[in-house]
């Protein structure tokens, strides 16, 4: 799906994508309200055992903006994303060096409560990973453990609303008690999105949230991302140049563990400074 669209993007990055119904959102005319930095990464290095997977990354993520991470497969996009909510802690061989702050507070501070951090920084994983529980319980789990709702009706509301926003409610409203693992790949992906937004985290990390989705569902998720931007900070990994151009305000290009270039989406797509960025977005390598 990607390979035949990159060309078009490179030629006219702001042009209307094939399936989009509204105007391109890439160069959003809305003035970015006082671009406060939400997450600040300084000299971040990640090692998997001896492998140096991420090298000296400096990156700022602005509040109430969508930041897109692009780059060829294996360049370390997921690795960087997982540093932001310390999901790399779960991997034994993984070692993270450097400073990452969320609202000026070091998230790798030993005194910091990782559980609290992850409640503030939610994540949609690259591979859909619904719990082997019912669809309802999948979405209700987060609100329950964080005490976001106090009675059944509240939770019902949150579940339905989250599923609706992820564009899944129509397909599953009559079988909320069925296992989430019994859904199709794309449905599972949207279920995981619904599950992540149900707890209203401040930052949402999305690792290729649309990789298994059809154009309509993709459009729904992109709309959702745009809606969420009002109140949330979003980091999204994507392999679709068009998607990056449509939904993000800033784009960061990774290559072989290096952060090659970061800037306004419009600038990256129309006037990249680095030749590698140029090559990647025009589809010459990657």
């Amino acid at each position, binding site marked *: 799906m990607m390979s035949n669209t990159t060309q078009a993007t490179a030629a006219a990055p702001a042009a209307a994508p094939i399936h989009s119904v509204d105007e391109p959102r890439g160069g959003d005319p809305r003035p970015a309200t006082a671009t406060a930095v939400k997450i600040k990464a300084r000299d971040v290095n990640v090692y998997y055992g001896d492998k140096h997977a991420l090298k000296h990354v400096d990156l700022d993520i602005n509040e109430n903006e969508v930041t897109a991470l692009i780059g060829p497969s294996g360049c370390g996009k997921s690795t960087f994303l997982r540093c932001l909510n310390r*999901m790399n802690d*779960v991997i034994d061989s993984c070692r993270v060096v450097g400073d990452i702050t969320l609202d000026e507070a070091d998230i790798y501070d030993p005194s910091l409560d990782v*559980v609290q*951090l992850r*409640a503030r920084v939610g994540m949609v*994983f690259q*591979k859909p990973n619904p719990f082997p529980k019912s669809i309802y319980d999948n979405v209700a*789990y987060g609100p329950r453990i964080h005490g976001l709702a106090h009675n059944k009706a509240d939770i019902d509301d949150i579940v339905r609303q989250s599923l609706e926003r992820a564009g899944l409610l129509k397909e599953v409203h009559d079988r909320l008690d069925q296992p989430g693992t019994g859904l199709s790949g794309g449905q599972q992906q949207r279920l995981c999105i619904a599950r992540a937004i149900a707890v209203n985290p401040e930052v949402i990390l999305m690792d290729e949230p649309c990789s298994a989705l059809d154009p309509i569902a993709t459009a729904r998720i992109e709309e959702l991302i745009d809606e969420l931007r009002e109140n949330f900070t979003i980091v999204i990994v994507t392999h679709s140049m068009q998607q990056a151009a449509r939904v993000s305000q800033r784009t960061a290009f990774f290559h072989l563990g290096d952060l090659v270039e970061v800037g306004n989406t419009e600038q990256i797509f129309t006037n990249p400074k680095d030749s590698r960025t140029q090559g990647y977005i025009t589809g010459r390598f990657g």
Partner: protein
Amino acid sequence: MTDAATPTPVGPSPGASPIRRPVLSGPHLRRRYAAERRFRLYGLASIAVAGLMLLLLVGSIWQKGHSAFWQTYVEITVTFSEGVLNPDGGPVDHHELERADYLSLVRDALKEQFPEATGDRRLRRQLYGIVSTNADFALRRMVLDDPSLVGQRRPVWVKLSDDLDSLAKGHIRRDLPESDRRVSDIELGWYDVLDKAGRIESRFNVDLFTAGDSREPVEAGIYGALIGSILTMTITLLVSFPVGVMAAVYLEEFAPRNRLTDVIEVNINNLAAVPSIVFGLLGLAVFLNFFGLPRSAPLVGGLVLALMTLPTIIIASRSALKAVPPSIREAAFGLGASPLQVVTHHVLPLAMPGILTGTIIGMAQALGETAPLLMIGMVAFIVDIPQGFTDPATVLPVQIYLWADSPERAFVERTSAAILVLLGFLVLMNAVAVLLRKRFERRW
């Protein structure tokens, strides 16, 4: 297959190497199908062999043991004479009834039945021996239950002696010479007379399931050992399951990976291979000698067996926990669940079927274990039914071991019957585990 599925854009241009596609016929494929068929056959054969073995085992035990579920009774007419039960006249005294000489009542009844045998002392002794030596207890119980029997004459069914019981069950051949038989000609004669008169009857052996052990073969039952086993297993389960699962969860989900945890892991694996008698010695040294817990008690037996079962449960639980996909943990962590919540809400429920399988294997081992219990004195001859965890008790396998040592025919068949009961207990335990596992699995 994939090669065949992908259309190759390259045409048959000259110079290009020819495209090789999988051949869908030929000897290679035939060999593959044959291997498939052979494998299936081997599988069926091994299941058939296993099934046959099981059938043979249970069949032979049943064949030896099923007669123990029946007991032959004889009807004698007893005169509950005042002279024996209430010698000093007056109102009937409960205390006196308890201590009266019921044996003489039985003997009188027998003498009355066969007056010709009363002259000779040796003959008389033989006559008294045709009923169980505990027949007087049955009379005593009757009179104590209903004191109005005193002075009356009643037909009473009492157990036949061990030897005559065997005769009735067809275990003793009449065509052997008298000296090779456990039953003399004269006893045979008496038996036939009684049988003709319809005074011999085979009944379901309720006592086998309601009585404790006894020196008298026809009175011995397995109820005491069964209760002992249940009490012991309860302790074993209550101790080893929570401790084992906790240890596994901690080692698998929380403990850092370092030298210490490696050493612990190796030691647990070694413990699983330690001969069970060693655990018995440990129990003797620690629970009895150091802590001074009572001997022969299900409490100590259960603790010793729990020690023995722990490694099995820990190893099985750890592998069950390991088998839970890491993506589930990531999903839960990503939502901000604490490590404990991740384990209790997601990992443990998913690992439960595997944990239960390990537990049932460990419990089945413990249920059949004899050696360590010998060390802590659970091998004693215990008549009373244990009432609690600290009462002296024995367990089914030890009871089997004790009975298997006794030469009397009734003990031989009871040995097999006890094995059947042990197997039944095992099947029941397994069934419970399977049910539990099904319940956990149904939550997908």
